């Protein structure tokens, strides 16, 4: 029996660009290049490894995002995923985590799954809560923040390195897994992979395909409201000294002046 894996991937503004908010206080996607959230590459990589171990597996990558988000799907397909689903609808603009997770959960159910894999956090919203929310919505075990993951005989096991302890986890499929950037380097798409990706199917769904109403999502439907966003004032230029033998002592003098010593 085939193992159906759905990987959730987010399309985000490049973190090394000059990220800004627009007037409606949503993310400005026009002035900075978008890409597949780097942390979701780890999710795609683990999906590929799990699929390689399984007798028969199919990987679907899923994104909720604007038209350009197809780029994120293409990248995942060129890494080796089999097919893609793009949930795209003007009414999705400005969705918060509750809205986004609602759409993702509906899409995952419609697609059919045994295993859902996500990244640990997006590189823009960086909330790190969507995986737990998805597990709650889907009613499946959450096996989250794994730095090591394995799927065998309908069971997923993994290691979660927490604040106070490292835990070994186990759950039965269907389940939701999120993986950290400690789970293993993500592969680069090969030339062959990039060519093959062009022929792989990308389905587009909108809200009506998911039986969702426009007021359940988007800026208006959000459960949260952003009232203001202000650029942090640039830090006032600090004192910079060149070490000519006394650098440590000068620094100590500064720290003493600030009452740290």
């Amino acid at each position, binding site marked *: 029996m085939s193992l159906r894996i759905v990987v959730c991937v987010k399309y985000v503004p490049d*973190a*090394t660009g000059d*990220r800004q*908010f627009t007037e409606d*206080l949503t993310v400005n996607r026009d002035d900075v290049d978008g890409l597949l959230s780097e*942390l979701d590459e780890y999710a795609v990589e683990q999906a590929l490894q799990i699929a390689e171990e399984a007798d028969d597996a199919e990987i679907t990558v899923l994104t909720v995002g604007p038209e350009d988000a197809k780029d994120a799907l293409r990248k995942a397909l060129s890494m080796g995923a089999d097919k893609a689903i793009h949930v795209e609808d003007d009414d999705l603009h400005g969705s918060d*985590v*509750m809205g986004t997770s609602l759409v993702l959960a509906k899409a995952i159910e419609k697609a059919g799954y045994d295993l859902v894999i996500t990244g*640990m*956090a997006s590189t823009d919203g*960086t*909330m*790190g*809560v969507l995986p*737990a*929310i998805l597990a*709650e919505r889907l*009613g499946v*075990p*959450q096996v*989250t923040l794994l*730095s090591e993951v394995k799927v065998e005989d309908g069971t997923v096991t993994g290691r979660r*390195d*927490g*604040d*106070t*302890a490292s*835990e*070994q*986890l186990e*759950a039965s499929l269907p389940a939701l897994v999120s993986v950290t950037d*400690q789970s293993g380097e993500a592969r680069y798409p090969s030339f062959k992979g990039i060519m093959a990706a062009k022929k792989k199917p990308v389905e587009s769904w909108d809200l009506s395909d998911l039986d969702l109403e426009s007021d359940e999502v988007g800026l208006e439907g*959000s*459960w*949260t*409201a*952003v*009232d*203001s*966003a*202000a650029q*942090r004032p640039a830090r006032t230029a*600090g*004192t*910079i*000294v*060149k*070490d000519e*033998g006394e*650098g*440590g*002592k*000068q*620094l*100590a003098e*500064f*720290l003493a002046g*600030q009452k*740290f*010593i």
Partner: protein
Amino acid sequence: MAEVLVYVDHVDGAVRKPTLELLTLARRIGEPVAVALGAGAEATAAVLAEHGAVKVLTADAPEFTEYLVVPKVDALQAAYDAVSPAAVLVPSSAEGKEIAARLAVRIGSGIITDATDLEAGDEGPVATQAAFAASFTTKSRVSKGTPVITVKPNSAPVEAAPAAGTVEALAVTFGALATGTKVTGRTPRESTGRPELTEAAIVVSGGRGVNGAENFHIIEALADSLGAAVGASRAAVDAGWYPHSNQVGQTGKSVSPQLYIASGISGAIQHRAGMQTSKTIVAINKDAEAPIFDLVDYGVVGDLFAVVPQLTEEIKARKG
């Protein structure tokens, strides 16, 4: 006055500092009712009362340790049902965020994560967040349901405010999902005797410039002279020079100490995401062009192998 649920992060009854900070913030919007779960829950009552908890709801059951996250959500939901609070506050640890998020789904509420401040507002609590590697400051609210907000460590002062702290047992019924993810093994992290990274007032971090695990003692010695926690960049962690649990940054710990000292760290955006809100930033780097110098209050362009030991000696001498 409205009650505010505060989820207690504790280790065998020892309450962690971020929870005491939450009590300070909770008092701005109502009367704190604390929820403490697991072994030692009742032992938390005294310190919680000392810091403003009018009531402490406690529960212990094997489920809390044998299964991941969900049993704690069931318990927090039971507390929510018992109290009907004006808001629910949870410390922004990885687990805290997951607990808060699942509760928010169940009670049909919005969630705000990683708040760095909290004030009462006309339409409910207003949270401050740092966005895009802390280059923006946003103010947000939960607009549907009871606000569920997770708060980062070091977001408020710990203040004594003695209250009743009456202990009540919380009745919890575990749902079908509670036993979904089994914890089959647990290796506690060994204590180094140094302060917890996210809670420390001073953090001293080393990066690729430290050039080897065997050199990290230089960073540790400086940290110890200041009573600081030790952090590391991902480059240092990936090289195996220091444990991942000490990584500072986007995919490591997010720290907001009074003083952050970066040695041999270039200041990549992902590193900055985890330390940019530090009050005072100091860097030692031999490259005058390193981006970290854009952030610093004081920077030394120099070789860390010369500067750091000299600094450590000078601190020791001054402290006598």
